[in-house]
Structures are given as C-alpha cells and as structure tokens.
C-alpha cells in the first residue's frame, strides 16, 4: 500500500504548491474564459450551435496545454524531479500523482468554463459534463507523460503542444461527438476506451521517460 501512499503524497505536494503559489489555476481560468470570449467574435453570425461546441473543445485543449506546461516547471527549476527519481518510490507513482493533480486543476478550470459556455453560447447537457470529465482524464494521462518529455528538452514550452495535439485528436472527436451527436453514449464509450488505453500506456512507460 506504500505505492498509493506515495501517489497521495505526490499529488498532495502538487496541490499544496498550487494552493500556496496560486499561479497555474487562475491563469487557466482566465485563459479559458478569454478564449470563449474570443470565440464569440470568431464565430460568424449564422454559425450553428454545433460550431460553438466544437470551439468549446478547442478551448479545453488549449487550456489543458497551458496547465500542463506548468506541470513540470517547478521540478525543472529546482531539479526536484531528479530527486524524486532517486527516491525509493516507483517512478510511475510520480506520473500518477502528477496526473491526479492535473485532473484537479483541469476540473477547477472546467467548473468555471462550462457555466461560462452555457451562459455565452449553448446549454450544457449531462453528457457533455461526462465527456469533459473523461476528456480531462485523457488530457492528464498523456499530457503528464509528454510534459515530462518536454521538460527534459531544450525546447520545453514549444515542444509540448507539438507532442500533445496529435495525440489528443481522438479526445476532441469523442468530446464533440458526445456534445452534438444523437447517441452520445458511443462517444462517451470511446473516450473511456481512450482513457483506459493511454492511461495504462502512460503509467507503464513513465519510468522510461524520466530515467536514463
């Protein structure tokens, strides 16, 4: 059970750091609302409801990138990641702890984004909320792994979006489908499948990304 305890400790560390510094989540909140406002001006007059849902998902993807870019910044700046890797904890616990924290940040951003979207554009159904929840897990799962890769590179913030965007195209498809299709269940199922596959893959391969 020490594995889960390690995960809990790591997640709590990230959440506490955020609580004290309060830099990532407020930025994400502001970013997602600003993006939605920009989208109002980006959408032409006769645009359909569906287009608005599509733009919501675009906003969520970019907000996730924003949050993830910060995910390993502290680690890099203070070489904490090296220390964590040397610690006796299983490396994949680092991934899990970090991913949990990222999901929490995303959830906070979404708690603001979804009501804002409902206010500005279109109503938000329960299927959409479920899709956003599942998508957040997906974003966090692959995003945490990719952010660790980007943190080890020289290009850092430039690299993460390039790695992230192709991988999350299926999430966007699932999310938009759940928002506008007649049978959202299929798309929710697909999102769950994506989460399962990529969470396991990320969990298993994280240690190879952070060690020599």
């Amino acid at each position: 059970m020490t594995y889960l305890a390690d995960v809990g400790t790591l997640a709590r560390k990230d959440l506490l750091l955020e609580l004290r510094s309060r830099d990532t989540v407020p930025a994400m909140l502001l970013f997602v609302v600003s993006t939605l406002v920009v989208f109002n001006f980006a959408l032409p007059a006769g645009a359909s409801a569906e287009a608005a849902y599509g733009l919501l998902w675009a906003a969520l993807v970019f907000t996730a990138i924003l949050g993830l870019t910060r995910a390993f910044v502290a680690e890099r700046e203070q070489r904490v990641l090296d220390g964590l890797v040397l610690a006796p904890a299983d490396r994949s616990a680092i991934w899990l702890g970090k991913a949990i924290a990222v999901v929490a940040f995303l959830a906070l951003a979404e708690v603001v984004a979804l009501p804002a979207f409902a206010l500005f554009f279109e109503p938000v159904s329960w299927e959409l909320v479920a899709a956003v929840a599942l998508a957040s897990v997906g974003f966090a799962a692959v995003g945490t792994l990719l952010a660790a890769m980007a943190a080890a590179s020289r290009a850092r913030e430039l690299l993460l979006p390039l790695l992230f965007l192709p991988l999350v195209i299926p999430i966007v498809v699932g999310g938009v489908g759940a928002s506008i299709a007649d049978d959202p269940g299929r798309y929710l199922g697909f999102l769950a499948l994506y989460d399962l596959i990529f969470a396991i893959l990320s969990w298993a391969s994280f240690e190879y990304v952070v060690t020599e």
Partner: protein
Amino acid sequence: MLAAAAAGLLLLGISLAFYWVPNAPVEGFRQRIFYIHVPVALTAYACFFWAAWKALRLLWTRDQRYDLESYTAVHMGVIFGVLTLVTGSIWARTSWGVWWTWSERQLVLFLVLFLFYSAYFMLRYSVDPGPRRASMSAVYALFGVVLIPVSFLAIRLAEGLIHPVVFTHDVGDKLSTSQLVTFGVCFAGTLALAGALYVNELTGKRLDERLSELREALS
C-alpha cells in the same frame, strides 16, 4: 540485394499496373493509382510498426543499438507517409476534383500520423543525444502505433457527425485475380524498397556514429 529485389519487383509491378491489369469497372483508368497508393500506405504502417518493435526492444534490453534502428524506421515511415498523402491527394483530385477531402479515412489518418511522427523529430532534435533521448523516442514511437487504431476509430466516429461522407473510391468489394497479383507485386516492391532504403540509411547513420567516436579518440 534488397535494392535489386526492390527495383525488379517495382518495375514488374508498375508494368503490370499500367499494361496488364484491366480497367476497373466504375473508376476506370484512374483506379490504377490504387496499385501505388495502397502499397505505399501499407508500407508506411509496416515501418511504424517496425519502429515500435525496435523501440520495445530498446526499452526491454536497454541496448542502445535499437535507438538508431527505431529512428531510421520512423524516418522511412514518414517518407512513405508523405508519399501516401501525395498519391492519395492526386487520386482524390482525379476522382473527385478536389486535392483534399476529410471524408477519405486513410488520408485523414495519415495526416494525423504525419503530425505525430513529425513531432517525433522535433523531440529528438531538442533533446541532447544519449540514453535519455533514446528512451523517450522509444516511448513516443510506441505511443504512435497505439495511436494508429485509436485514431482510425476516432476518424470513423467523426465521419458520422462532422463531415458528410460524400466521396468514396470504388475499389470494389473483391479484387479480381489480376488485380490481386498486380497489387501483391507492387506491395512486395514497396516493402523491398523501404527495406533497402532502411538498410542504407542505418548503415550511414552507424558510420556517422563510429566516425564521431574515431574523431573523439584521435583528438
């Protein structure tokens, strides 16, 4: 040898595609692009799977030799992927008058894969050489092959709701014998070509490596 086989097979295959095989019933002459487009696409997939296999071997055994092999395979895959996109685009142009359509699944899938594997190169260029870069590239290559079926599923799901399916190629439900033979020869040819280019490039890269070592040792 591989190169010779590739040359022979492709020459034979292309001749078959142009002279021997009869016109397809509905699409007519333009269907013949099928004999270069699909083999190139399948070869690209084969390269990506080969790269993932080498990546897996690297992570398993920590033998750094596999890094260059995986990298070269990804490179081959991207080259053939670009060829798939270009030939697919030409086929779309001649069949439907447009250079691109979102309703052609293979084209969209290859576009996603092209983006994904191009980022692979960005990743490699921005990390200093060494075991760390090798491991990260390997993990990324593995994600790539997992992405192939997941993306395909996503694209299928997307069809129903975003882009109306307007165009389809009439490749027919069953290929006639002559078509199968032509396809088989062309496919074997493109695989051999990929193999020949792969071996060539790998040798070149290994030579590069050893020359650097030599240079280090001498200075």
